[in-house]
């Protein structure tokens, strides 16, 4: 797999697993209106993943197979999106950190010399604009709450692990925290996985794996 494909897969896997994690709030978000909004964002992220997988496999390729049929060690998602977060403060902290990181890497991709990649990045970014509004509004509301500050600090090294090294300083500037030391980044970098990935993947692919290959849905 080329470096370019690895790069696109990293983003696609981030969006797929984060979309899945966030869809776990459907039905139990703190307010009914937020439940609908949050579920909608989760759905959008999975849509972005699909478009990216399709770009990797080509127009006639099987995006589902790429998304669901790889062995676990081939998934390229960052540990941040794997975490099973059970409280709203952490969930919103991750949402805000992730969107800020995602904006930085999408901005870089929008200038890509490959027009298909640049075009898709621009298209994704137009939807992310709304996600960023949503994240910013929650951040503004919660930023002085100790629970939220603690959650941001706890997740900060994971958020750094989302981006390649050359983009991290920009992220630190936007979030207003200093980059963590290498020892703090251990096990939070892309390429490593948390123990939470396996059960999530099992659940995500359970129905698909239960049917013989090639089954029509």
């Amino acid at each position, binding site marked *: 797999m080329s470096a370019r494909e690895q790069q696109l897969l990293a983003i696609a896997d981030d969006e797929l697993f984060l979309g899945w994690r966030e869809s776990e709030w459907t039905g139990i978000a703190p307010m009914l209106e937020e439940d*609908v909004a949050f579920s909608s964002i989760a759905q959008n992220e999975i849509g972005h993943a699909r478009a990216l997988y399709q770009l990797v496999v080509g127009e006639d390729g099987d995006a589902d197979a790429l998304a669901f049929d790889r062995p676990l060690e081939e998934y390229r998602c960052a540990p941040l999106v794997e975490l099973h977060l059970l409280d709203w403060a952490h969930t919103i902290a991750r949402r805000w950190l992730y969107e800020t990181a995602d904006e930085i890497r999408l901005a870089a991709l929008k200038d890509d010399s490959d027009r298909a990649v640049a075009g898709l990045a621009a298209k994704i970014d137009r939807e992310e604009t709304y996600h960023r509004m949503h994240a910013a509004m929650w951040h503004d509301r919660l930023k002085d709450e100790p629970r939220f500050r603690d959650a941001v600090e706890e997740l900060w090294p994971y958020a750094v692990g989302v981006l390649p090294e050359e983009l991290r300083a920009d992220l630190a500037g936007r979030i207003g925290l200093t980059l963590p030391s290498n020892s703090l980044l251990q096990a939070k970098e892309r390429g490593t996985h948390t123990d939470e990935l396996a059960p999530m993947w099992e659940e995500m692919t359970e129905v698909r794996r239960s049917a013989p290959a090639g089954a029509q849905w």
Partner: protein
Amino acid sequence: MNEWEVFRRERKGQPFEHAGSVVAPDADFAEAWAREQYGRRGESVALWLVPRDQIRDVEDWADEFDLKYRRVDGYSIKARLKEARERAGTAAPGDS
């Protein structure tokens, strides 16, 4: 948390119509949530969000002297027209 009344415009050039409401802590949350509830499926080209407490309610009218001729449903001129036509010796339009 405050209530916001949401009005939506379905197509360009059409009037805004009341769509429903959202309960939100401020204007930004109201906007984000109204976008989801009333715009996500392409059913609106524009929304208005109005704080409920900025709306003046008007619900009562005094009509103590039964001036029913002022009401849209209360004043029939059919009988008077007939009478006037008979006086003038003309037929109603459409009658032969």
